[in-house]
């Protein structure tokens, strides 16, 4: 049993170097940060490969018909990581890429947290934490009642699952054996105030999800091939929901920001910082 946060190092991931697509998507994140002069840097960068694999290889959707009835539903419950979602939605053509330049501006559709009905492809308005899994399980129940094969993926932050409502939802999803529901946890191990081990320790995290009757797997959340391997197998069990715990690095790809709670969110982002962010991604 650890006696202090220092005694437990971050899990060392043997992640392959970021490829060109991962770097390109991160540069799009920087583009939005530049447009808004603010944003959740660390929280978005840890999500990139998760979002990339979901939208490149896993989810079923139609950018020209975001409400298509048979689409898979993806709810970004950690709404503050929305730039990572916006980047993929723009990349896939839900809206033009240059919309990213308007991030957080007065008349933009792209706010600091995603809004359903405003941003094509956003399923639920999130930002207040601990809401997405309940909404997702309601959708999963609805889809199942209608005997359709759409899947519901809910992406949660690690700090987010401090919220008791997440565990109410987990208990309920387990009870209903919702095999069409998957919880993906972006486990970067750093929340706003500091390391999760210090602020509110989540361990043993995989055991918790298993105890709530989720088929649970852990994966390197920046290893594209590993993520594909897991997500393409969804659901992991036919008689219960799935939890995919993605071990990630907060601020991944920006060397000077990685694993640092100070980069959870930045405002007053200036040209110099934008240049440094681009430089870090070269």
């Amino acid at each position, binding site marked *: 049993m650890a006696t202090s946060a220092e005694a437990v190092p971050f899990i060392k991931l043997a992640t392959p170097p970021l490829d060109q697509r991962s770097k390109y998507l991160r540069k799009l994140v920087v583009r939005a940060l530049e447009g808004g002069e603010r944003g959740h840097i660390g929280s978005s960068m840890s999500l990139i490969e998760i979002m990339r694999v979901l939208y490149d290889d896993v989810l079923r959707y139609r950018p020209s018909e975001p409400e298509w009835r048979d689409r898979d539903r993806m709810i970004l419950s950690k709404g503050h990581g929305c730039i990572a979602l916006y980047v993929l939605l723009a990349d896939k053509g839900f809206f033009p890429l240059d919309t990213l330049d308007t991030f957080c501006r007065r008349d933009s559709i792209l706010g600091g947290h995603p809004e*359903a*009905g405003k941003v094509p492809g956003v*399923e*639920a*308005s999130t*930002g*207040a934490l*601990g*809401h997405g*899994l*309940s*909404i*997702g*399980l*309601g*959708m*999963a*129940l*609805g*889809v199942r*009642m*209608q005997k359709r094969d759409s899947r519901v993926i809910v992406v949660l932050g690690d700090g987010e699952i401090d919220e*008791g*409502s997440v565990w*109410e*939802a987990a*208990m*309920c999803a387990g*009870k209903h054996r919702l095999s069409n529901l998957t919880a993906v946890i972006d486990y970067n191990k750093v929340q706003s105030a500091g390391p999760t081990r210090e602020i509110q320790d989540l361990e043993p995290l995989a055991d918790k999800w298993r105890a709530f009757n989720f088929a649970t797997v852990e994966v390197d959340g920046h290893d594209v091939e590993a993520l594909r391997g897991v997500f393409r197998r969804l659901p992991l069990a036919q008689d219960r929901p799935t939890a995919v715990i993605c071990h990630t690095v907060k601020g991944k790809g920006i060397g000077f920001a990685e694993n640092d709670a100070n980069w959870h969110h930045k405002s007053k982002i200036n040209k110099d910082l934008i240049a440094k962010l681009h430089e870090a991604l070269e």
Partner: protein
Amino acid sequence: MRQTCLNMVYDLARRDERVVFVGSDLSPGLLADMKRDMPERWYMEGITEQNLIGMSAGLAKEGYIPYSNTIATFITRRCYEQVAVDLCLHDLPVRLIANGGGLVYAPLGPTHLAIEDIAIMRALPNMTVTAVCDAKEMIRLMNATLAWPHPIYIRLAKGGDPVVSRDDLGFAIGKAIPMRRARSRHAAVLMSTGVMTTNSLAAAELLAKDGIDVSVVHFHTIKPLDEAAVLDFARDADLVVTVEEGIRIGGLGSAITDVVVEQLGTSAPPVRRLGLPDEFPHNYGLQDDLFDIYGLMPAQIAASVRGALKDKAATGVAAVNASIAARA
């Protein structure tokens, strides 16, 4: 009223396959017929109010109309953010059935008294807030809910409440019902909601015996407020008395005062708001005991009307308003 409301859920479910029931941890056997006949549309999810609201939102997003039910204090206070964000921000047709509105659970103490439910539900954009006066009116409300495109808060009374509503007066969400019309437009008007309409009608009878002729307007919908009805009755009235089973801050009386003051300006009649003061009740007993403590029994309502009319006759509108402010 509660049983009628739940029976109506099943009735609506038989008529419309979008209707689902989502309960928390309610009575054994609740809606057993619905559970038997359509188990896939009957949910009992335990003491998880936050999840219950989010799940209802998700079902609504997939085209269902959830009727979601638990005790009034828990479906408002415990999960207020879920109600605000999941239901109201998304503007989804979820119906919150709130058992024990107001002072119904008097013997159970302040944790179970829904004194500010109307005020806090009313503050949420897109939310509709209702408090019908009896079981017959509940049937009319429930029939109207099926086509209403927004979230609705349905406040339930104790049950077994006397039936005072009338079929011939019609029913539409957002439309107040004049239950008693004074012969003169220059009279006092009681504006009430929920079972306070019953007590207001009884108060009107007592006043009539003293030769005081008053109107009673029933607001089964507090939001959207029927502003036209407020103005129609307030414009020429000597006095407006609002009567509600909840705190005065932000409730029906506040809503009506806003309209009267903003629309009628200096020609506004004095407004007296009857309800609970800014405090948690600490007595027990029965609902009527708490009504008595807070001046909401018919004789007390009548006395408040008499007192306010007397103040006005003696000192004029400005002094009445000052007097009311001092008492509040």
